[in-house]
């Protein structure tokens, strides 16, 4: 049985207590997407603006546990300013790290994740969440919400 220190790394608690890019952009012009975790009631609101195919500005609002809040904060720091395709690659890499059943992942995704040149950086700290399967959805909530937002804009 993994210990709490695997889950609650110092950097995670730091992002939880001092969340980056907190708030909501005015929408429109920003795009706004809400996500929620039906199991536990966590809610997240992602607002962002695209400029030249890049995530120029992004803000996070909502409520949730330390993992969901820290993950959202880390994500915001990691994706701000990146191009959409970089964001998608990064999200694949992150979600593959968050996957307990690697075999159930789309092989195409794994492939591109393993050849991705990105560094997860701070996000690596969330690796320990995989050992606590019920918390995985907390960590992926903000990413899935952002991806939904990007899909909505591209659709």
């Amino acid at each position: 049985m993994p210990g709490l220190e695997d889950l609650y790394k110092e950097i995670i608690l730091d992002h939880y207590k001092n969340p980056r890019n907190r708030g909501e952009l005015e929408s429109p012009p920003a795009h706004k997407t809400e996500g929620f975790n039906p199991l536990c009631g966590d809610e997240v609101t992602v607002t962002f603006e695209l400029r030249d195919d890049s995530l120029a500005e992004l803000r996070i609002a909502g409520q949730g546990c330390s993992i969901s809040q820290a993950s959202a904060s880390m994500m915001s720091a990691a994706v701000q300013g990146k191009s959409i395709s970089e964001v998608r690659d990064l999200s694949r890499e992150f979600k593959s790290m968050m996957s307990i059943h690697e075999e159930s992942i789309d092989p195409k995704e794994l492939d591109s994740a393993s050849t991705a040149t990105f560094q997860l950086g701070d996000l690596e700290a969330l690796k320990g969440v995989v050992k606590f399967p019920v918390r995985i959805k907390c960590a992926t909530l903000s990413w899935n919400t952002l991806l939904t937002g990007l899909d909505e804009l591209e659709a």
Partner: protein
Amino acid sequence: MNLPSDLKEQFPLLSQVINDHQIVYLDSAASSQKPDSVIEAMNDYYRTINANVHRGAYEIAAQATEAMETSRGQIATFIGANSASEIVFTKNATESFNLVARSWGGQNLSEGDTVLITDMEHHANIVPWQILGAERGFEIRWIPLTSDGLLDLTQLDQLLDGVKMVSVTAMSNVLGTLNPVREIADRAHEAGALVTVDASQYVPHLPTDVNDLGADLMCFTGHKMCGPTGIGVLWGREEILDSMPPFLGGGEMILDVRKDGFTPNELPHKFEAGTPPIAEIIGLGAAVSFLESLGMTAIRQHEIRLTEYALNALDDRYGDELTIHGPKDASQRGGVLSIQYRDVHPHDLSQVLDQRGICIRAGHHCAKPLMRELGVGATARASLYLYNDESDIDALVDSLEPAGEMFAL
């Protein structure tokens, strides 16, 4: 009368060691643990008389049928039903509510009609009405709450205007609130409405008599009352059940099937389609025997004492840093404690507690409309049952502080 102090020994799971700690199980509102006698009753069934019921002329089939029907009779007696044929077996309380909504509601509710529920209902007593309501266009009205987490009945007469069915929980699974079901039922009956009671959190914990409650229909679930999973109950007054059309169709629930239609069977079989959860019914009978052997009054007294102990211990230790949703007085509530400690998120709290072998539940507890009323996304809920004791509460109390140190913003 007190409960025996060695009760935990009858529950095999309670001797588990989790993360080097003897388990402290404080999640009985989600599902209770099972005593040996319940597990053994089902084993005995499978090992000695397993056979499909009601249709076999041979010895073990007759014995299985008798064991199942004996359970039905025990459960009828346990809740003060007038006869065993008022007991309909379902798979859980949720199915019982769907049966009521689809069968009774399907016959009686259409546009212009109203169903009255409350802001503290479990999804099981909300969504079935919403599904039918979307088809039929009737209104669902909600009894609001006071700031103490009680039902606010000041406007009840207006709320009852035009209502055909009042469906209300006897005890909240989030707030612990014990509702004045009898008063509501009397006033509902005066207004010409029927009353369905959600007794999922009530039957396991308090002496129950359907006539005292003033109920017309009542739903509860086996796994919260020391019984197995896969078994629920719908009780209804005979003339009401008799008037309702069948819900699920199939074997057992028919007198005759022709190519051009079918003739429904008598109660309770009319509502029991297909092979019943035989082992589970027998297990629930054993659970009722177990509860009766302790005495429901003694169980209730034990839970009041323990709830009081918990409320006091938490208040003494944490004062204003800690809030408990719902009524303050242990005699007005069940042993369900939704705790807000500093600003520690329920998920993080339950994770820290788990590390010490303490099982509480964090989430919306299938009561999202209530969460919105409380203005929270989730609560951290510790809930008691007959096997809990002061040591369980002490473990809970001692574990909050470290969580606060870790997570307070």
